């Protein structure tokens, strides 16, 4: 065991996979010499050489597009988009090729590829650096979308993502890259994609969240406990394929759902979770499900971000309303 931040845990996962699998290559903008703008890949080029960990030219579409070529010819590329807002130039490659090559070729070509990027707000960043585009990527058939919430999960999920024969979008909550330190096993372990994690069992309200919002939910739970409300907290870990079973089981117990996510609320993961609640647990529901999510606006720059970002207090406010309904 070793105390790690999420940055260190991701670095550790990449290190383990680079060491054990010669087909793994890691590249993107600034990931080589400097080790990434967040230092996630620090030291890896020195250890594994410029053929395996390298800086690419600055062009996201080609970073992803070349990854498609590498993946279908036997490599396991792990590419980095420097920020979520810069993944959009690669969107055409992702939606038109990454997600489709296996289906298009009737299984002849696999795309075992990971597209990593930091996402989310709360760091006083400039425009395009605070977004939460999980719904965009989860809507594309052929992709898996994974979002860790702790250093431990980041390591185990990334190892699974690299070992997945299907392409994975791996979204890293940059706000807690270094904010959480945790004991993480130093050896290899993996956490399955497609399974949610029940972080706290409770009986009154089910709260579903992921990524950086887990920490905010845990803070809200302290307030809920003081108010005598028992919260069941589910960390999705994987957005797609979403773990309906865990959500259904929880709702059959609590009958109350609060979804917490920082993305715009309409046509979102929150929308999908409410659909799941209706389809899977309609007769168990005791209160209208609630979405504690961003407005359907552009996320404001730093000065206005306080209105947009989800705080523990706001989560508690919605938990209490739902519990008392």
């Amino acid at each position, binding site marked *: 065991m070793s105390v790690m931040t999420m940055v260190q845990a991701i670095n550790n996962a990449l290190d383990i996979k680079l060491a054990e699998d010669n087909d793994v*290559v890691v590249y993107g903008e600034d990931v080589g010499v400097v080790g990434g703008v967040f230092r996630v890949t620090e030291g890896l080029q020195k250890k594994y050489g410029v*053929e395996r960990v390298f800086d*690419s*030219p600055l*062009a996201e*579409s*080609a970073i*992803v*597009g*070349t*990854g*498609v*070529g*590498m*993946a*279908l*010819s*036997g*490599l396991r*590329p792990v590419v980095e988009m420097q920020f979520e807002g810069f993944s959009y*130039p690669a969107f*055409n*490659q992702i939606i*038109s*090729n990454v997600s489709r*090559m*296996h*289906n*298009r*070729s*009737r*299984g*002849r*070509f*696999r795309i075992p590829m990971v597209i990593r990027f930091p996402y989310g707000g709360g760091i006083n960043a400039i425009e395009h650096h605070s977004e939460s585009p999980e719904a965009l990527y989860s809507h594309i*058939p*052929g992709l*898996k979308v994974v979002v860790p919430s702790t250093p431990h999960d980041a390591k185990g999920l990334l190892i699974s993502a690299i070992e*997945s*024969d*299907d392409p994975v979008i791996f979204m890293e909550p940059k706000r807690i890259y270094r904010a959480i330190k945790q004991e993480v096993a130093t050896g290899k372990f993996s956490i399955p994609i*497609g399974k949610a994690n029940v972080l706290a069992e409770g009986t009154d309200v089910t709260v579903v969240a992921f990524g950086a919002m887990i920490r905010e939910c845990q803070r809200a739970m302290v307030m809920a406990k003081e108010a005598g409300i028992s919260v069941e907290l589910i960390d999705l870990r994987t957005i*797609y*394929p*979403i773990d*309906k079973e865990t959500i259904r089981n929880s709702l059959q117990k609590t009958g109350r759902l609060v979804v917490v996510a920082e993305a715009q609320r309409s046509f979102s993961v929150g929308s999908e979770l409410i659909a799941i609640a209706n389809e899977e647990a309609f007769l168990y529901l005791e209160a209208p499900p609630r979405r504690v999510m961003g407005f359907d606006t552009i996320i404001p720059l730093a000065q206005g971000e306080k209105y947009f970002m989800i705080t523990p207090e706001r989560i508690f406010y919605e938990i209490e309303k739902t519990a008392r309904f």
Partner: protein
Amino acid sequence: MIFEEFNPSEDKILRIIDNDGRVLRPDLFPEISGDTIVKAWKAMLFERVADEMAVSFQRQGRMFTYPPNKGQEAIHIAAGNVIRENDWLVPAFREVGLMLAKGVTMKEIFLYYNGNEQGSNFKNAPRVLPINVPIGTQLPHAVGIGYSIKYRKENDIVFTYIGDGGTSEGDFSEALNFAGVWQVPVVFTIQNNQYAISVPVSTQTKSINLAVKSIAFGIPGIKVDGNDFFAMYLIYQKASEHARTGKGPVLIEALTYRCGAHTTSDDPTRYRTKEEEAAWELSDPLLRLKKFMERKGIYRENEEKLREQYKKEVEKQFLDAENVAPYALEDVFNYMYVEMPDDLKKQKEEYQQFLAWKGNRK
């Protein structure tokens, strides 16, 4: 060096035979046997017949949209004579003759254009990618494959294709840039057939030609008469040797003409003249090669007889494509993921329940 002699910034063009099949540059004439030349001409004729029949099947309502290849056969068959079994082909969608040379069958091509993804599951061509519809996005794939080859220190190379219109796409520039920086073994061919659907090359670029774009990326580029089989054969020999010996990528602009429509849904009379079409017919690649063979006394074929023979072969392939097993519900779901998510299984089962209900309905 050929790339220096035919410097694209001076708008030079590599041409070896003229429209009457006369050799203009004996010094550049490639080493190629008479037998290979005859076989190449036959392969071009087969592509032409298959293509004409595809259009005709579409007109009969037996096939959906199809993009004709007519007029571009010299490029495809020249490449087909140089590409090796282990080399990769990353096509756009107008390279039928080359796909056939790599082991793809007309049955598969017909199956694809008749709306069945099994037509991209090339049984005898594991290193040919499916036809790529979103313009230009295939080029980065070729560069990525090139990276794999270089990473594994293998000897194979990648052939990839794009049209003149595709050179305006960002992925064209990004791919050439990456290929130059990474020095990967990729032979890029722009099939400049003059039109992107209805839009002429002059609307795509202010560059004096398309090969000249290679200069900005620091890679060799050359403009070639794409209707001249020998010029294309020579340049593919040179380019593949360049790529195979670790010297990096090459960009070829093959000047040609799309004799047919963009696809069977297109009507070229709306944007080009009969005179223009007639002028290009004079440089028809099959005709030129036939005239060359006649001059050399190596043409002993009966074209009409060959056409009849090829028609029968193509027809059989078409019937085979028409007679594949019906598209099953499973085919919609089975290939989305290597490991099918539970929810997809459930969506399939729900639809099966609907089908069962429908079947029992009076």
